[in-house]
């Protein structure tokens, strides 16, 4: 390393000009975004405690903020930050009896595994770090944590986001985020969660937990509206990036590619799904010229990889395959509804859900006519999960309208309008109720 980390350098350095300081801070933010996961993972490998590793990494970041404005960003900033973090860890270990035992264990590890990897041996260092980052993802998404805690911890440790950024993205207070993170770290410590990538039968369930967190982050961003803080839509980018990181680190897991495919294809429609006045545009009404073909291509490639790996029947791959059916259709009329109906049937068999079944009813209605679709919907009217779900009467109204049963259709649209609080949706449903009334009067 050309620039040795120096804990005390800040006290000796002259203060830089404010503009230069701001530029360095932006550079440090960029470094942190790139390096946070690797630095935390590298320290966690040593201290075997993810919460502590994250705190030590934050200490290293503070040291960088103090020193780099004067010294410049070092040539290998990741190694610099890791070195500071590890040095602080050793200080702490020396002072702390509980951790001393861990040091002994590490000592034994080192004896059996040879010397710890350093930046000198970059090839093996990189591979080890990759494994550590994967361990970090699995730990941050451990099922012992609540979903909210997993999301916050993942964005903080893998995405390098600050608590303020997470708070703004999720429309909650910074104190709430900070509290979630502190609690999550405590829970991990209490449960003695090992810093490892699970193997064997545990692995599939644990991977499911990781993918759930990533998809949740994506959906949070996807549901953002035009007026929101830009950080909310940025969550989609973050989730896509996390998905690609996972695909790079665990390339043989088909569901990872399935999730990446699903997110890429959904993201490809983001420009088309909102009208000029901010109103939502339904999938079949979207201007397909506004779909991002680059993202679609990447999504289809990821889906093909999931299928090559034998994962065509996984829940994310199935959802991606449905999204791909829409992406491949040049016009709404060209949509392969038979295939979509079959994919929903497979998805429903895998994870039975009345919402999946409702979607299947729509596809069947398109493929084989409204009567066939209505038959499925009528089976769902008593499902408790759909009791206050406005899309049930909305879909039913649409099928009844197509069957020429305008009076019933109107009643369903009106009922649906009372079940949602979204102003734009209410307006749309009222309009459809009026259409049904007019059609009924004309017929």
């Amino acid at each position, binding site marked *: 390393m050309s620039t040795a980390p120096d804990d005390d350098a800040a006290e000796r350095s002259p203060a830089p000009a404010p503009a230069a300081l701001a530029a360095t801070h932006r550079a440090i933010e*960029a470094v942190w975004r790139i390096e946070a996961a690797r630095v935390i993972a590298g320290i966690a490998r040593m201290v075997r405690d993810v919460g502590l590793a994250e705190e030590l990494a934050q200490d290293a970041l503070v040291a960088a903020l103090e020193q780099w404005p004067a010294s410049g960003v070092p040539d290998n900033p990741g190694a610099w930050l890791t070195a500071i973090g590890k040095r602080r860890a050793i200080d702490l270990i020396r002072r702390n009896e509980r951790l001393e035992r861990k040091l002994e264990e590490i000592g034994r590890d080192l004896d059996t595994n040879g010397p710890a990897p350093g930046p000198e041996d*970059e090839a093996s260092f*990189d591979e080890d770090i990759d494994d550590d*980052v994967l361990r970090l993802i699995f730990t941050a998404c451990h099922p012992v944590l609540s979903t909210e805690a997993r999301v916050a911890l993942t964005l903080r440790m893998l995405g390098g986001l600050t608590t303020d950024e997470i708070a703004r993205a999720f429309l909650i207070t910074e104190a709430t985020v900070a509290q979630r993170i502190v609690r999550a770290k405590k829970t991990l410590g209490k449960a003695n969660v090992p810093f490892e990538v699970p193997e064997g039968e545990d692995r599939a369930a644990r991977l499911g937990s990781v993918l759930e967190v990533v998809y949740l982050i994506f959906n949070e961003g996807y549901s953002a509206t035009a007026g929101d803080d830009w950080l909310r839509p940025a969550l989609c980018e973050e989730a896509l990036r996390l998905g*690609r*990181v996972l695909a790079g680190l665990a390339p043989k897991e088909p569901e990872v590619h399935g999730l990446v495919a699903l997110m890429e294809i959904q993201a490809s429609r983001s420009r088309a799904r909102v009208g000029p006045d901010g109103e939502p545009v339904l999938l079949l009404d979207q201007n397909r010229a506004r779909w991002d*073909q*680059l993202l679609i291509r990447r999504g289809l490639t990821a889906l093909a990889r999931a299928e090559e790996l034998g994962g065509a029947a996984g829940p994310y791959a199935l959802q991606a395959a449905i999204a791909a059916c829409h992406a491949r259709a040049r016009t709404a009329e060209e949509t392969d509804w038979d295939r979509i109906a079959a994919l929903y049937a497979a998805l429903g068999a895998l994870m039975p859900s009345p919402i999946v079944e409702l979607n299947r009813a729509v596809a069947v209605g398109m493929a084989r006519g409204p009567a066939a679709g209505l038959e499925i919907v009528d089976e769902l009217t008593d499902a408790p999960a759909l009791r206050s779900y406005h899309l049930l009467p909305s879909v039913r109204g649409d099928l009844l309208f197509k069957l020429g049963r305008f009076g019933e259709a109107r009643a369903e649209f009106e009922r649906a309008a009372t079940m949602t609080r979204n102003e734009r949706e209410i307006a749309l449903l009222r309009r459809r109720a009026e259409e049904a009334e007019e059609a009924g009067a004309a017929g």
Partner: protein
Amino acid sequence: MRYMILLTYDEKQAVPPDERLINEMGMFNARLEKAGVLRAGEGLVASDHGARVTVTDDKRTVVDGPFAESKELVAGFWILDVSGLEEAVEWARRVPNPQPGRSATLEVRRVVEAEDLGDAFAPEARAAEERMRARLAELD
């Protein structure tokens, strides 16, 4: 946001990449991939296998390579999907020196998006471009 990193150096002084450099570049590219930011990247063969077409009004002149008069020539590029210029610059800083013992330049430039062109990019032209991209995607 998409950024392009253009690698340029003095071709006349250039030495062909050895095994070590190829490995280093491979590791750098793997890191880009694992960070979820790599969209594309290629290296270019020296200019004696290329040509230049000069455009002056309606006149076209073709000159075969090598381009002896140019000091720095493009030798490769990456396209990255990152949060902004600072992050793109950070990645550029991590590119292994392609010419050990000599200097090279990494130029960081943002890729034009449809939004940058504003009203000059009419909806019809935009739709035509999207259709072209769709066809290209199928060829790939």
